[in-house]
Structure formats: structure tokens, C-alpha cells
């Protein structure tokens, strides 16, 4: 589904990603871990198409298309979803209106009829239940006045509504208490299928107790320096990152 080859990217001439290689297949869950400043968020931003980042080398193939060649909105419409680490507030624009616009843009792109009001509201009801999102939040302005937990749940709600092929969760666990974490993780698990894939970016093993990864990668200094299964995450939790840094620097 996603094939990243030798990806280099920089911001303001400072190279952050220094040759990333990663293969993600349908039905898989990948976790990317790593110390602060290793390039985790840069990777998710580059994949989503944030303009401040410049890709200097490498390629990204997404479902047979050259991802880096697509505008950010087209990447989204092709099925790439980023759950933001810091979801953005849009005052005065209701969550419902925002999602309706997004869904109909996607439908238009795939030459489908726009969703009818009934169809749309049915989806809202079904999907908001997945993340136990209060239906009142659906009619409030996008993320405005939401608590940290509500914002993260709203991200997963949007993900459920848009039914992406590949979801990247950028530190979705940060700022969540244990109950909210469970709700968010349950939502993600319920959305998992044979046909979609998830990349979870996180600092902590904690989230991986709920969203169990097939693969764990350690990102350090702009490169994936170690890959393994979920046991690697447990080892990191126990020993920290220093031993990996030592291995790399040795």
C-alpha cells in the first residue's frame, strides 16, 4: 500500500529525514517510536504534504501513485488520513459542515454522487458512537473549546467518517487520560480491516497495549535504525532509547 524509499526531507535547509525506508501493506499496523527530535512528526507531515517541508531525495508510492506528486487535498482524497497531534480549531465552522464538505469533495473526486442529508446523518450517528463522541460536539465549531481528549476523539471520528485506506496517527495518545486512551484505541481497532492500514506514531508503549502493532520501528536521527515486532516496544519501555543510540553511534 505504502512504499517509502530513501526519503530525505528538510525544513529551512536543515535535513530532518535522512533516508527513510518503510513498507506498509494492507491489513497491517505499524508503530513508529523514537526519542524527541528524531523526525517522527516530520515524517507524518511530509507524507500528508505540508508545504514547509522540502523533499530532497527518495520516493513514496501510495497505492501505485506517486504520493509526492499529489496536492495535499488529493492525497487525502486518495485515502491518506493524518490524525493531527495538535488538532486545529476553526471557529464558526461546525464539525458537521466541515465533514460534509470533506466527504463530498472526496465523493466528487471519485465521481460519486454527494451524500444525501439522511445518509450523512446516519453516518454521523453510527461513527460518533464508535468513539463515544457526544452528538452535541458534532454541531459545535471544529475543535473550538474542545478538551484535549475531545479533540483527539474528534480526529478518530473524522477518520471513521472519511474511511481512509491509510491512517497515520501522530501522537494521538499525548494528553489523553487512561479512559480516553482506551476509547480512542477501541475506535481505531474497530475501524481496522483487511483493506486498510495504520501507522501509529508514539512515544510510549502504553498506546500499543491497546492498538497492537504488527511491526515496531525505531526512528532516530532521521533514519529507521531498528525494526521488530511488538516485543521491541516493550524492550524500549524498559530500557529507554540510550542503548539504541549507542548501537547506532558505535
Amino acid at each position, binding site marked *: 500500500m505504502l512504499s517509502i524509499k530513501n526519503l530525505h526531507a528538510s525544513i529551512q535547509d536543515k535535513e530532518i529525514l535522512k533516508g527513510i525506508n518503510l513498507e506498509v501493506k494492507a491489513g497491517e499496523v505499524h508503530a513508529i517510536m523514537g526519542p524527541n527530535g528524531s523526525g517522527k512528526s516530520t515524517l507524518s507531515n511530509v507524507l500528508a504534504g505540508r*508545504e514547509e517541508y522540502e523533499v530532497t531525495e527518495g520516493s513514496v508510492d501510495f497505492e501505485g501513485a506517486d504520493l509526492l506528486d499529489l496536492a495535499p487535498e488529493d492525497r487525502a482524497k486518495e485515502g491518506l488520513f493524518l490524525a493531527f497531534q495538535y488538532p486545529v480549531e476553526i471557529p464558526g465552522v461546525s464539525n458537521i459542515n466541515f465533514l460534509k464538505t470533506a466527504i463530498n469533495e472526496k465523493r466528487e473526486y471519485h465521481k460519486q454522487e454527494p451524500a444525501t442529508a439522511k445518509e450523512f446523518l446516519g453516518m454521523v450517528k453510527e461513527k460518533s458512537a464508535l468513539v463515544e463522541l457526544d452528538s452535541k460536539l458534532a454541531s459545535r465549531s471544529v475543535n473550538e473549546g474542545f478538551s484535549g481528549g475531545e479533540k483527539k476523539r474528534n480526529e478518530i471520528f473524522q477518520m471513521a467518517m472519511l474511511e481512509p485506506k491509510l491512517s497515520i496517527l501522530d501522537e494521538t495518545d499525548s494528553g489523553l487520560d487512561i479512559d480516553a486512551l482506551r476509547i480512542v484505541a477501541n475506535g481505531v481497532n474497530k475501524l481496522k480491516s483487511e483493506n486498510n492500514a495504520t501507522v501509529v506514531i508514539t512515544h510510549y508503549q502504553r498506546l500499543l497495549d491497546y492498538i497492537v502493532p504488527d511491526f515496531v520501528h525505531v526512528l532516530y536521527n532521521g533514519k529507521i535504525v531498528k525494526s521488530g515486532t511488538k516485543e521491541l516496544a516493550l524492550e524500549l519501555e524498559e530500557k529507554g532509547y540510550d542503548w539504541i543510540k549507542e548501537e547506532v553511534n558505535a
Partner: protein
Amino acid sequence: MAYTEDDLEKELENQEYKYGFTTDIESDKIPVGINEDVVRLISSKKNEPQWMLDYRLKAFAVWKDMVEPEWAHVNYPKVKFQELSYYSAPKAQGEKKWEDIDPEMKATMDKLGISMDEQKALSGVAVDFVFDSVSVKTSFQDKLGDLGIIFCSFSEAVQNHPELVKKYMGTIVPTTDNFYAALNSAVFSDGSFCYIPKGVRCPMELSTYFRINEANTGQFERTLVVADEDSYVSYLEGCTAPARDENQLHAAIVELIAMDGAEIKYSTVQNWYPGDEDGKGGIYNFVTKRGICHNNAKISWTQVETGSAVTWKYPSCILKGDNSIGEFYSVAVTNNHQQADTGTKMIHLGKNTKSTIISKGISAGYSNNSYRGLVQINKNASNARNFTQCDSLLMGDQCGAHTFPYIEAKNSTAKIEHEATTSKIGEDQIFYCNQRGINTEKAINLIVNGYCKEVLNKLPMEFAVEAQKLLEISLEGSVG
């Protein structure tokens, strides 16, 4: 990445002013220049009574000695008052029957989307159509007449209801008020007049549509709305002008009078030609709008300002009566080289008076957008309250947003709140929308509409939709 040069170019084409056409119609236009004879000529063309002429001459005498105000935060070449024509009327004005109206004029109304045909009118909106210096047609007069409501052109009111005009005209905006008001009082040509009798709730929206067609003509119209005790009226005003290279002048006066317990809702969607993207041409919009509230009365101004090269306008409320309420809701958009200096004055005289000001400025391109407001609580206005919220949104890095709030409180029981924010449309917000599959242009529309929602919600339904579209057109291509 999201934008190619081609996309941008296409949008800029689309963004052109849709109402820039001219109507090819024979007109009766008086020679350029202004002096006492011109004032007399206008008055005689309109077959006015002596008292009206005297009013004009007095105003002209005042104007001659006045100087153009320069305190506004706008910058434009001086208007050459002797090079303007002060009166232009489509020829062959006879009976104002629909059948008799020039087909060219009908076509113009069609293009502007004004429905005069009462049978075909979709919504219950009565319209007075003012073309250059005269009112062409007012619809639904009979139906309104049954309720005792007078809705007609200003000229008709002078002829048919002189007692009302004499009693109220100039009581809110006196001839001496300011430079443009004095000029208007001397040479005004037409406008709308509306009187709602005691206890009557006007069943439909009343509307005036202003159109400047002739080149080098000033449009000077006046609107006078009198809502008698416990009555209610909602009034709409729309305006457009052809795209011309020269600047055209529009100096209007609007006076609102809300008697005890009355309520007037006055909404404007101002879409005068803003000039081209280099700032050439466009309307100078210098307007004096003011209303007075007697006891328990309420006046609510709502404006969406997207047009004009230069706007100088401060719809105000004099809260004279106890428990009276004044409201001002404004969205002002400037793009390219447009300049707007707009805001309101809330003069609290009565006890327990309340005012609310919500101003949303949006600046793009090389434009300058200023909010200028005065909240004045006078000595006897005990327990007066004001809430002001004044937000500015910047798009791009070449435009300016300025706020000049003045607060004068002479009564210690006054409660005044002022909130102000300045923000840029965030890259973050746009990227967030992009990531959900919404392109940048649509994202900006969403964000801007969200930002203006509090004001747009105050507009009557059909107008709100129009205003929303207008915002989109005005800002198209402003972020690349």
C-alpha cells in the same frame, strides 16, 4: 503544490466584478459642475415645493464653506466636485407602470437579479429601484398601502407626503452634520421613503436597490425610514455600479427614526464597483447613516461591505429613549487596493440603554481596513451597557488592519466591554482542511464564513446567501 500558476490565473479571471456592465439608455444629464443654479435646476426638474428648495439652498451655503474631512485612514486623489454631474435620469420617464418601463431598463434589472414583477416575485420583498439619480419603480405599493405603510421614492414622498418629510428630514442628520451630508442635502436627487404606522408590523422586507450607471456622475440619495410607535420594519439595501476607469462618487444619507417601542432592522449589502486589481476606478462611498431610538425602541444595523474603492461610513445610533437598544453588525472585506474606514457610533443618552457592536474586518491584497468606533455614555445615561467585539482577519502580508475605538463614559454606572482580536488565516487551518480533502480556495471560504457567521446570521435569509457568495467572489485568488 496545491496551486499552479494556471489555477491562480483562472481564478483571477473569475473574480472579475459581475455587475460591471453599463446600460445603454438615453439619459437626461445636467452639465458638470456645482453652484446655486445647479441646485435650483435639480429642484425644478423634480418640481419641488419652495420649502424643499430652501432646504437645499441652505445646505449648499453651508457646504461651500466646509472642507473635506481628512481624518479617516484612507488615501485617495481629491474628488473634483466641479467635474461631476449632479443629476442624471433615464429619459422618457412617464407613468411608473411596469409595461411602460424601457426594455433596456428591464434587462438591467434582470441582470441584477431584481424582481419587480409582483406576480413573479418569489419572496415577499418590496423593492424601490434607484437608477442614477431617480427612482425607477417601487413594487408592492398597493399591498403595503392597505396597512397604511408608505413606501415610495423620496421624490414622491416630497410631493405626496410633504408633512411627514418636512417633519423628519434632517432631524437626525442635519445639513450641517458633515461635508458629504451637506453636499447630499443640497443636491440629493432621489432615494426611498418609508413610514410604518403605529402598531404595524411590516409583513415583508422593504428594499432599495441603488445602481450608478452614468459616467462622471455622483449619486446622492437619501433614505428616510420612520417607524411609528410599536411598529416593526426590516429594510434592505443593495448597490452595484458599472466597472469604469474613473472614480464615481456616492454620498448618501440614511436617517432612521424609531419611535417608542418601535424596531428597525436595516441591512446593507454594499457591492459598489471596487476598482480593478491595480486600484484603478471604483466608487468613493462616503455615506452618513444614523438612527434615533426613542423609549424602548431598537435599531439594528447589519452591513456586509465588499465593494467600493474607498468606503467612509459609520452607521450610528442615538439612544435617546430609556431602555433603547442599538446594534451594529458589520463585515467589511477589502481586497486589492480597496480602502475602508468604517465602524459605528453609539451615543447613549437614555437610562438603561444597551448597545452591541460586532465588527469583522477582512483584509487581503494591498488593501487597508480600519474599524473606527465611538461609544459615548452621557451623564444621564445611568446603567448604560455596551459590548464591543472587533476582529480583524489578515490574508497575505501586504494588507493592513487598524482599529480606532473611542470610548467616552461620563456616567459611573456604565458597563463597557471591548474585545478585539487580530488574526491571520492560519496556514495550520488551511492545511488541516487540505488534509481532509478540502482545497485551499474552499478552505478559505469555509474559514471566512465561519469567521463572519455571527454577522451573516443577522441578515435576512435570501440576503445571507447572497452575502456569502459575495464574500467568496471578493476573496477569490487572494491567497496563492
